[in-house]
């Protein structure tokens, strides 16, 4: 059949499709940040890592014609940025939040500088799986075209949730995150653990960037992220450092972000600036609703500098 409108059903469909399409960078950045913060450190620089990852992935994909090599390269540079952050934070009296802001500007600046030649060329895109092939509605087919990175992100959220509780690595991470002294008493070196956790966080955040430039919206330019990396860092607190919570919060943000365009497309055209604020309003509402005057944030790692 010829493409025709699907009326108000477009809104829930767009929210669903938007949740899947837009959430992937949030998922990877917030999972990465969850690992880092669980080790007792905050890396605010992930916005820079996200953008630098997007640029690297795009550049490598353009040069090698392989989007997957682009993803790998992004992971490598993301890990390097994480290592740099972790290395600097190792020194006494260094504030991880300040370093994070510096790293963010560094990552952005370097990505803009090195990314100049890649704004014009087109890169091969990451593949998507057509889960909607059963439907004869093109809208549903498009909405169910799900990128593999989204599925990997979902699996990773489950895996991390399980690993934090049930594995030795998870235990080490949590001990270091909750009390440096306890970790030292166990013979662990908190700096090394945090260094590796920040590197892992950086590598994951860079995958989020690769998704932006190689799948959706699928091009490299300097405004590609528009602050998604920062929002994802905030999502981790919102999700109470729980990987599954991060995944759900990312979906919520993705879906809420799709609300504005979807409502306009069905003719609800008044006040679109208000709809565009939906994700932030939602965050505020949930934060207020779940806050408590008597206890501090549940699930916050004890050694985190915001809780110390």
């Amino acid at each position, binding site marked *: 059949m010829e493409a025709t409108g699907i009326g108000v059903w477009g809104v829930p469909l767009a929210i669903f499709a938007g949740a899947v399409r837009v959430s992937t960078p949030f998922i990877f950045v917030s999972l990465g940040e969850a690992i880092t913060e669980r080790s007792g450190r905050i890396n605010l620089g992930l916005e820079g890592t996200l953008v630098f990852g997007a640029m690297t992935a795009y550049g490598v994909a353009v040069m090698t014609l392989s989007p997957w090599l682009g993803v790998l390269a992004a992971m490598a540079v993301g890990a390097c940025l994480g290592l740099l952050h972790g290395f600097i934070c190792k020194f006494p009296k260094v504030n991880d939040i300040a370093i994070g802001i510096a790293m963010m500007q560094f990552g952005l600046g370097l990505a803009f500088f090195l990314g100049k030649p890649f704004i014009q060329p087109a890169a091969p895109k990451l593949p998507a799986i057509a889960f909607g092939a059963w439907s004869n509605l093109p809208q549903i087919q498009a909405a169910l075209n799900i990128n593999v990175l989204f599925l990997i992100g979902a699996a990773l959220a489950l895996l991390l949730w399980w690993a934090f509780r049930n594995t030795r690595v998870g235990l080490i991470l949590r001990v270091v995150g909750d009390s440096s002294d306890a970790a030292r008493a166990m013979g662990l070196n908190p700096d090394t653990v945090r260094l590796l956790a920040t590197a892992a966080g950086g590598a994951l955040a860079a995958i989020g960037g690769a998704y932006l430039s190689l799948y*959706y*919206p699928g091009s490299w*330019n300097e405004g590609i992220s528009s602050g998604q990396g920062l929002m994802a860092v905030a999502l981790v607190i919102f999700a109470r450092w729980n990987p599954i919570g991060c995944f759900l919060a990312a979906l919520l943000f993705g879906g809420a972000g799709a609300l504005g365009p979807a409502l306009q*497309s069905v003719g609800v055209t008044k006040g679109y600036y208000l709809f565009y604020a939906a994700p932030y309003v939602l965050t505020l509402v949930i934060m207020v609703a779940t806050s408590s005057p008597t206890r501090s944030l549940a699930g916050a790692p004890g050694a985190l500098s915001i809780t110390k």
Partner: protein
Amino acid sequence: MTKLLHASHAISRRAFLQSSAAGAAVASLAPGLLLSPAAAQSVLTVGFIYVGPKDDYGYNQAHAEGAAAIKALAGVTVVEEENVPEAIDVQKTMESMINLDGATLVFPTSFGYFDPHMLEMAKKYPDIQFRHCGGLWQEGKHPGNTGSYFGYIGQGQYLNGIAAGYATKSKKIGFVAAKPIPQVLQNINSFLLGARSVDPAITCQVIFTGEWSLAVKEAEATNALVDQGADVITCHVDSPKVVVETGADRGAFICGYHANQSPLAPEKYLTGAEWAWGNVYTDFVKKAQAGEKLGNFVRGGLKEGFVKMSPLGPAVAEEARKKFEATLAEIMAGGFSVFKGSIKDNKGKVVVAEGQSFAEDAIELESMDYLVEGVVGSTA
């Protein structure tokens, strides 16, 4: 690069403070003796300021192509800065260009640079010429060393609309727009009026993203339009790349804007309304070099070479090509008006009365605040 530029701002501020203290003293004694650095040389230094990257397949690329055209002229030095926000930053950039590079003609090319940023600088540097792209310069209200230039690209969107009108099967076309300012509204209206000149049953759905460059929102908007059945998409955002690629991926036809995007979607690209700033900038520079007065209010359309159309794509049918070329010829002959009465806005109010018509240079069009009947969308 960003870092270096920030450093140069710092230098410029310091240098400026020193020189303005000394300069003010000298100037008050002998105003005629003080020559700006560039005026002493025979080379004309021209500054270009872009709000985004200059190879964005869009607004900034169109201006940078214009700047590249004047680089080829003898006796001209071009200084450029990209990614300058529409904030106090652009004042610092202008100041750097004037004080450090010796620019005497500055083109701040983004809409939000006009008021208050360029106007402030113009008051501070009365010997420097400022020409802004898109602002509405008014005699008496704005300084004489400033001015604005713009192209009647609405005609181009009208021609886009004709191509779209023949290509659409669903009779629904889509427009991804940034902000509801007059130029954008005029483009949306022209696009629909062009399509309706082919088939009056066509409607145009518009989605505003609220910002000039928001890649993810533009992609979402394009998807939402296609989901609602729009099968020809055009846009007015700074970089149409995302809209063009997303729309073509979803199987919609594309009409381009700002620059030629046909390499991004060779099969689906119908045509596009492009700027031809090279002609405009060359004209300004030639006048400046000859010591003539630069225009304060410079406008032109397809006929004057301010705007051009992308070559028609392979999906354009013969019938469409004929009507497109006939209308283009009519526009080139002069006196063509897209807005001919009677036209109602999409709330039912008559905005162009029966018998009334606005030619492309009608000042009324530059303060347009409505969407015409057949456009689904709202200006607020």
